[in-house]
């Protein structure tokens, strides 16, 4: 794939309205190696303000690595990533800024097991955003209300079901009032009956205009909510398009193969 072709792919599937919005995340030729394994082979992608972007692809295709590079849980080695006008480099000041403006939800929830649900949510607002405890707790209760589990505030994560834990994890990220939310396969570790309760919360978020990048295997969610869908394979972006284009009329053979296997 030539450099020109990939540049055009980055903007593919964008409506005029979407194209006119601000660029919130810009990835330009991002490359990343783990030892001698190349996980990202020059990814170009732009996420617009209030856009919901779903990243699809087989396992090991670099989806997770890409979004983990966006909040610098992994450092990319070549290319550039600009989030909200700030370039990601080794600059400590920038990393701190990005981390508090980009929320992330993990596959394994990663709640802090030794803290109550309320403490899990208020920890970062208090110590990173320097809010007063009372204020942080008030906000935390609002968020728990919003994800539908205010009565669990004093429990420990281990006492909750998987779906509840993931909703707490979303509330924990939202408590930092992020501009962007990253979701790394948020429903993959859940029992089937709990998936919808998490997806509902995510759909609400999307409706309220949060900028979101989701790595997920939930095709229904992708079709319903996504503004654009990105398909990745072996560290490359293969195809970008609207859900309609993607599910009805994909251009690339690899995308067709993937869809035929998964649908």
């Amino acid at each position: 794939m030539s450099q020109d072709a990939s540049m055009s792919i980055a903007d593919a599937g964008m409506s005029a309205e979407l194209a006119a919005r601000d660029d919130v995340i810009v990835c330009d030729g991002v490359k990343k190696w783990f030892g001698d394994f190349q996980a990202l082979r020059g990814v170009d992608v732009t996420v617009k303000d209030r856009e919901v972007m779903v990243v699809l692809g087989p396992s090991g295709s670099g989806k997770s690595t890409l979004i983990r590079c966006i909040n610098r849980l992994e450092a990319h080695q070549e290319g550039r990533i600009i989030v909200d006008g700030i370039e990601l480099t080794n600059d400590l000041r920038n990393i701190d800024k990005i981390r508090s403006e980009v929320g992330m939800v993990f596959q394994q929830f990663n709640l802090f097991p030794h803290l109550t649900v309320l403490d899990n949510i208020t920890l970062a607002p208090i110590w990173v955003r320097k809010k007063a405890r009372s204020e942080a707790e008030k906000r935390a209760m609002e968020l728990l209300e919003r994800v539908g589990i205010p009565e669990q505030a004093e429990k420990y994560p281990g006492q909750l079901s998987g779906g509840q834990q993931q909703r707490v994890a979303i509330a924990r990220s939202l408590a930092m009032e992020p501009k962007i939310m990253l979701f790394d396969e948020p429903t993959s570790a859940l029992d089937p009956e709990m998936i919808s309760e998490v997806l509902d919360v995510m759909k609400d978020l999307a409706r309220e205009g949060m900028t979101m990048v989701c790595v997920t295997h939930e095709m229904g969610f992708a079709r319903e909510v996504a503004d654009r869908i990105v398909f990745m394979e072996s560290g490359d972006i293969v195809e970008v398009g609207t859900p309609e284009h993607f599910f009805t009329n994909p251009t690339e053979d690899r995308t067709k193969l993937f869809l035929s296997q998964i649908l």
Partner: protein
Amino acid sequence: MEQGAAVQAAAPPAPPTVPAESPGDWIRKNLFSSVGNSIVTVLFVLIGYAALRWLVGLVLDEERNWAAVWTNMRLLFSYTYPADQYIRIWVSLGLTLLMVGLTLGAFASQVRLSLGGLLTRIGAAGLALLVLAIVHMVDLFGLTFHSPERPVVVMLVVGAILAAIGFGGRQAVGAGSDDERTVPLFAVVAGGALAFVLFLWLVPFGRYEAIGGDVIAEPGTVNFTTKFPWTIMMALLVGGYLAGLAARAITGSTAFRLFLGLWWVAGPAFLVFLVLRDPEFDWAHIWSTDLPMALGFAIGGGALLYFLSAPGRGEVARIAGAVLLLYAAFNWLAAFGDLNLPGLGTINWQWYPFASPPAGVEGTSMLQKARISFLLLALVALIAPNFAGELRTRLRFVGAWAGFMLLMHWLITGINTPSTVQVVQPPFLGGFALTLVIAYYVMLASFPVGMMMALARTSKMPIFRVLATGYIEFVRGVPLITVLFFFANIVNLFLPNGMELSDLGAIFLGYTLFSGAYMAENIRGGLQSIRRGQFEASDALGLTTVQRTAFIVMPQALRVSIPNLVGQAIATFKETSLIAIIGGFDFLRVANQSVPSQPGFLGQNLPALLFISVIYWIISYAMSRGSRSLETRLGVGTR
């Protein structure tokens, strides 16, 4: 007697001596289920008989003069602490027991013990005494010991009474109700204290005393100077327990627990250095120098920290911390006076007013505690941005600093002031008190060392990792005794002029560094059990490395390492006995040297050694049992 208790205390919760089936069935099932099993039973009966016969014979043999122990209790526990100042020992012990009571009341108020199990243990202890007495009377292998009759009769009578109480009570309570019939821990503590007091006042144990080298051993209950203070001690323990229950109900648990935690860190130092040591304060100097300096650091440093802990002052704080750190390091260098660098000449610091003056020249150098305070201020300033927040958080942060400074200055002043206690040997503590204090503070001080080293060893930074690994593996590869030799004999050679470590200080430093390496390995085990997701979630939320370590990683890692940490605490306590080899008069040295060299008890090493074995055993065993129950309590549920 203690050995009998050991058998029972080691028993699992399920009481084997009161089975649901008939005794005959039980014996057949557990001892003679097969031919092999029967052989094992016979074999162990013979081995057990021989071992117990030998042990009882050894203890009761008339060559063992147990008066060597009974008359030397004070020597064993507090060495040569002057008798006219002994009230200080009682005050310290009393305060400690009071705090033990408060802590139990605050933390273990929910603990209940099974009544049936308790009675079974009492009964089994009695049974064990009976068995020992009978074994002693039957001589199968010709293990001839010459022992007096009286102890055997006492064993028989006491054993029969205990067995009757235990098994009789057991029958009265009814079998199979272990889980339902429980007694609160308080009842057990209070009952134990009462039994001890009754023993002191009523049981004709014998009155032992050593007055000016004359040994007095006459029938009767124990000395008034023993039983009276101990009665008060037991009252304090029980009273403390009740107060703890009340305080917890009134003040809310967090504040009260914080107070208890602070006491257990700083309280013992207060007892040792200010109560037991009784420093002779120079009040004029304190008002003119010490107090203003302490207040200066508390208020001035506090103001600086208040400024640095405002949100968004991260870079200012880093620069301020680095500058302070350089200044603190410079203070230490200037403390050496003119610094003689081998091969590079001498650096003169006399232009600096706080540099140590050259030998023989009058002048004032900076007080050591000021240097320490500057260093601490620099380190706290460096981490201040991590704990920044709104007004209340900052005030709490500053308050903690000010409180810590005042406490530290007070303590250092106390340590540096000459003691009024007249003792034979330089350390004013000896015997069991010394063992306990060293063990306690080595555990406490090795904790930060171990934590730093564990973090360094698991860090991603290769040089830190190599340094920490080198330190840990080096220390773990050599025996404690060589480390102690090094610190007792050699370490002062390494220190520049004007700095010196006392013998005890050197031993303490060496033992702490040694213990720190083992501590590091234990904590590292906990750190490695934490999943990567916890680190990633903390990073994604924007926590700094210090915050991540303090709030997320360490609390979880420490919880996992509790069993190992307690194991190490036990090891530290036991290995404190090595101090005896390098010349400290600890528990072992007093028992093994001071007591047997008294004219009346020449060569009586065995009674004293057996006695201290039992004391060591009780404490170590209690700690390991305590850790096991703590483990189950923490392991249960999700906390």
